[in-house]
């Protein structure tokens, strides 16, 4: 039988995953602090398939795709909100929040206070400072560009901002959070960052790029379908050959 039809199948499966990633990016085009996922394709030579064939023959030049993805941690635009508990990070770094006694990382700086006057994310996860949990008791809140918080002109705490040497180890957790699952990766203070009070970071999804990605994905899928139809016709001709 023709092997090609199975190869278009893997291609189609990969293209579907790619489409799902694009859809997720588009759905989050207005999610603050969201970082777009990008698909990566690798072509794997189909060595196993060619082993049974006669020696000296070149491996079949078809390949099966494997898909992987990475998170694009590029900075996004800052949106001015005027809310004095909104903080945007310009440059490298993440805010540290605790969830189930575990450190999670986020770039979504839309914070609020809970009933104990602690600084929390919109989900109620506590935002960590250099000196532990951040308590803000007062009305005049000033956050300096290094994260130092002054409440009523008195030092209160400093917002902790950390980064990693290798950010590819960070995994999406959902709810605008990233989780570090590599024990060897340690938090470190980024060299260059600026905190901006009254701003929050928008999503870094580039809608034009996503539309192009979507179009190319759609057309790729269409091509696979065309090839499938072609194979189908060929096989149909082969089968009907005997009847002539």
């Amino acid at each position, binding site marked *: 039988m023709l092997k090609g039809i199975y190869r278009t199948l893997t291609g*189609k499966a990969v293209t*579907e*995953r790619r*489409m*799902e*990633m*694009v*859809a*997720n990016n*588009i*759905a*989050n*085009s*207005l*999610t*603050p602090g969201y970082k777009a*996922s990008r698909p*990566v394709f690798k072509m794997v030579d189909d060595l196993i398939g060619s082993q049974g064939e006669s020696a000296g023959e070149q491996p079949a030049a078809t390949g099966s795709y494997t*898909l*992987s*993805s990475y*998170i694009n941690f590029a900075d996004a635009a800052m949106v001015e*909100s*005027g*809310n004095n508990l909104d903080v945007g990070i310009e440059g490298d770094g993440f805010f540290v929040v605790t969830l189930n006694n575990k450190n999670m990382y986020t770039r*979504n700086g*839309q914070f*609020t*206070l*809970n*009933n104990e*006057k602690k600084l929390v994310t*919109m*989900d109620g996860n506590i935002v960590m400072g250099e000196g532990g949990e951040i308590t803000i*008791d007062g*009305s*005049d809140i000033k956050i300096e560009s290094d994260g130092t918080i002054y409440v*009523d002109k008195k030092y209160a705490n400093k917002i902790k901002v950390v980064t990693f040497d290798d950010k*590819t*180890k960070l*995994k*999406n*957790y*959902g*709810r*605008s959070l990233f989780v570090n*699952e*590599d024990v060897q990766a340690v938090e470190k203070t980024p060299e260059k960052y600026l905190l901006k009070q009254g701003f929050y970071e928008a999503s870094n999804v580039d*809608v034009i790029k*996503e*539309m192009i990605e*979507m*179009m190319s*994905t*759609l057309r790729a*899928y269409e091509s696979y*379908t065309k090839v*499938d*139809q072609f194979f*189908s016709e060929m096989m149909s001709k082969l089968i009907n050959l005997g009847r002539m």
Partner: protein
Amino acid sequence: MIRALWTAGTGMNVQQVNLDIIANNIANVNTNGFKRSRADFQDLMYQTLRLQGIKTGEGNQVPTGIEIGHGAMLAAVQKVFMQGDFQETQNELDIAIEGNGFLTVIMPTGEKGYTRSCSLKRDSDGKIVTSDGYALEPSITIPNNTISISIRPNGTVSAKIANQSEPQQLGTIELAMFPNPSGLKSMGKSLYMETDASGSPITGKPGEDGRGTLLQGFLEMSNVNVMQEMINLIVGQRAYEVNSKAIQAADEMLQMANNVRR
């Protein structure tokens, strides 16, 4: 079936709520004491098809995994308690709160409500009430033969009464502050109610402990910025549109898959 359909669907859902909130903000552009709401979005959980960092059969480490997200969701709708602009009305019972704090009123159910819409009135007994007839807490009654009322920035209410040379002190308007005003429950009619998230109110005289001061003869206007809402509206509508395009694309892919066998 292809997940992209539902993923883009969540995106459309979220934008729909976003438009609802913008519409409500715009509808209240002239509501005194109104505070705009803001929708806060988050990404949904991810499905990990291949975990990063695991070892492959050849002993290499997978540098990046495959994570496929499931779209977006609404995390919170936050009231933004930014100061609104002031409008001079010269009405002696109109007050604007300059800074933080809420007036406390008693609702018909007996519960306490909090408001920043302070266009106050007098009822038939001379009690100071809101436009809906809810009495202030602590209650202040204005005598019948009053000529004029003066409200000091620190909340002291005094009245000039006919045939009296000295103004008579009637009471003090107190302001309530909350540890987390965004956690208040909006009741409509410019009223808010206390919740577990907002914390208990701390009442006291205006101007003390970070409370705002009162300004007689002025009203606080809505803090909705029309320009900002229009931009949010455009962005929200376009985001809705692009999500619908993603659904169309996913649908076309399914259609093609169905057409392989004719």
